[in-house]
């Protein structure tokens, strides 16, 4: 009898030991979808994570290059109801749409109420919507005004100054054009306009009501129109995205350019003709109004359908940590979101522009947080593009835009 009991104990013991071991050895797969450039930049971090976390197998799916193509890929998989991804690296303008569609898991229970405490001013914007946190930012992106240090002493601070400097440089034949920016019918045009709108003292939405026929909005649209009509901006701007703009500026054909921080790294490459001849600042504005910088950060969201949420959150914490952001800045020049990284003396020594970027980030303005933002923006850039091509006068276009935006928000019950 005793022997039987001993055997039973041994059996139960070894069995439970084996099961416990099996559970411990179970490796949790976590998959993250990122746009191609970020997937490349985080490769070292991902292998470091996999080394230090043997119970999680992290893999990164390399998405397309273009922002909206990444969203298309993510949405296609989410619509099928069984997305292979656990985390998504999201653009700031997608968050309310994805949250309203029910695809995201709120992060507050995982990260606590002080999750955003360490973020630099400006980087905390656009992560929460409807009272919940949906995204944690990895990299900050802001719109900047690039200017040529070899052509002028100081950058313009008002729209009138920018026009005056451009005129005199063009008259003297030192540049073909004054100012290039993104005027193509796409999201980039909305980003450019938002900065001007704030610079002229306006707002896109106020108390959930569009303000696009306000005097400030009209002044901003008129200013864009004038830039093209007076030849400070080439008419070709109506089809210029970021790469085309950078090309004109890099060729030395323009005195000013509006672009994102990635252009800074491009312009300072060893073979760049403008190396050391460029600086950046925030967008011009009328006296008394802010120099605004459209915020375009990227951050991680947890998908509601993920079966490995705890492991995925561990990945999120690791990849957005101060250490990871520091590496991404040192190696790839990406702008961090954590205040502690901005103030890191080693980084500041290696990348002196970081201080200016932090300042620009503090001037960040956000595109409206609304589940129907994509429609709002589509109305805006379509109508503005007709102003830029000269097909419609600014006042007509802005009145039309205002009534279309009102109708959209009315029929959709307003941004929640």
């Amino acid at each position, binding site marked *: 009898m005793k022997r039987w009991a001993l055997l039973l104990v041994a059996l139960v013991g070894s069995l439970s030991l084996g099961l416990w071991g099996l559970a411990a050895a179970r490796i949790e797969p976590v998959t993250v979808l990122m746009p191609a450039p970020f997937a490349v930049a985080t490769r070292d971090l991902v292998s470091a994570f996999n080394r230090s976390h043997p119970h999680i197998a992290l893999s990164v799916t390399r998405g397309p290059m273009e922002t*909206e193509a990444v*969203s*298309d890929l993510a*949405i*296609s998989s989410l619509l099928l109801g069984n997305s292979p991804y656990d985390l998504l690296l999201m653009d700031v303008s997608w968050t309310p*749409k994805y949250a*309203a*569609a*029910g695809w995201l898991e709120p992060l507050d229970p995982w990260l606590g109420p002080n999750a955003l405490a360490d973020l630099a001013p400006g980087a905390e914007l656009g992560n929460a919507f409807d009272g919940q946190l949906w995204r944690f930012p990895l990299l900050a992106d802001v719109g900047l005004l690039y200017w040529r240090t070899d052509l002028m002493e100081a950058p313009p601070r008002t729209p009138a100054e920018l026009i005056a400097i451009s005129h005199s440089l063009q008259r003297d034949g030192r540049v073909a054009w004054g100012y290039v920016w993104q005027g*193509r*019918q*796409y999201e980039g045009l909305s980003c450019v306009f938002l900065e001007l709108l704030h610079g002229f003292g306006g707002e896109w939405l106020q108390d959930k009501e569009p303000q696009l026929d306000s005097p400030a909005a009209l002044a901003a649209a008129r200013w864009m129109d004038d830039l093209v009509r007076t030849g400070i901006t*080439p*008419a*070709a*701007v*109506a*089809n210029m995205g970021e790469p*085309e703009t950078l*090309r*004109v500026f890099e*060729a030395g*054909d323009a005195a000013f350019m509006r672009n994102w921080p990635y252009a800074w790294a491009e312009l300072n490459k060893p073979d760049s003709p403008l190396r050391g001849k460029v600086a950046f600042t925030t967008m011009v504005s009328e006296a008394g109004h802010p120099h605004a910088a459209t915020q375009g950060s990227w951050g991680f969201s947890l998908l509601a359908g993920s079966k490995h949420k705890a492991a995925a959150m561990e990945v999120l914490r690791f990849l957005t940590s101060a250490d990871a952001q520091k590496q991404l800045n040192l190696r790839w020049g990406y702008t961090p979101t954590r205040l502690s990284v901005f103030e890191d003396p080693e980084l500041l020594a290696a990348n002196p522009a970081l201080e200016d970027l932090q300042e620009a980030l503090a001037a960040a303005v956000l595109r409206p947080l609304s*589940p*129907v933002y*994509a*429609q709002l923006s*589509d109305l805006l850039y*379509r109508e503005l*593009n*007709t102003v*830029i*091509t000269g*097909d*419609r006068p600014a006042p007509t276009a802005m009145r039309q835009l205002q009534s279309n935006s009102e109708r959209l928000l009315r029929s*959709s*019950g307003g941004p929640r």
Partner: protein
Amino acid sequence: MRWRLWLLMAPALALLLATFAAPLGHYLWLSTQAQSVLTALKPQPIGVEQWLRLFNDGRFWQDTWQTLRFSAASVSVEMLLGLAVALLLDQPLRGRALLRTISLLPWALPTTVMALGWRWIFNDPYGPINRLLSGLGLAAIPFLSAPSITWIAAVGADAWKTTPFVALLLLAGLQTIPADLYEAAALEGATPWQTLRRITLPLLTPYLLIALLFRLAQALGVFDLIQVLTGGGPAGSTESLALYAYLNAMRFLDFGYSATVMLGSFAILLLLCGMAALAWRWSLRWQGGLR
């Protein structure tokens, strides 16, 4: 005996139903629902509201006109050029095999790649065409930034890519025409023009029709070329119906309306095809009456 026929056709019919009728039925149902980001993607019945919205949507009608304009222009150009290329490649030239291969290359390129290429070719001011013009002291052409020009640029890029496809179909057709017909015509002293009009074109008609059908179907659903080349701009002047439906579904997450846009354009196409078929029948009757 009848039932056996149906039995044999059953697999094909089932396939057709599953791939054609079922999605169409689903779209019809979807067009009576509000299913968007604002309903948390859950369908809610709203009757004919989406159809009223479509009817009053100026953008839908503008895109319809632009899609038809693009299709008519690009398909006409491609048919004419394709015929010319096919006639040329049918001639006994030296190095004909090489020529045929080269002329097919544009068709082999993925549309997105070729559209990106054309975007740089049309670039103002650094594209090769505008460089050449500025070298000659001429003003740059705003290929992609002027609504009155951009749609023609898009037609040009489309013609570049798909003319080889038409040429290939027509070349196959040309090779089915017996050589003795041409010999007989030559003996009778027919001019090349008469030979073309009386022998080549009539015998090529079925192939011309097939090419026309394929090209029209593709052009009316144009999406990738426009999306990459212009994104629908400038000033919305190149947006096609397919692009509008895509925007509604994938960007705006408004599936009910996207389905309505698709069905609306489908209905317009059906109407056009019906009218074309009627016109065809009448023209045949008219010709018959003449004889």
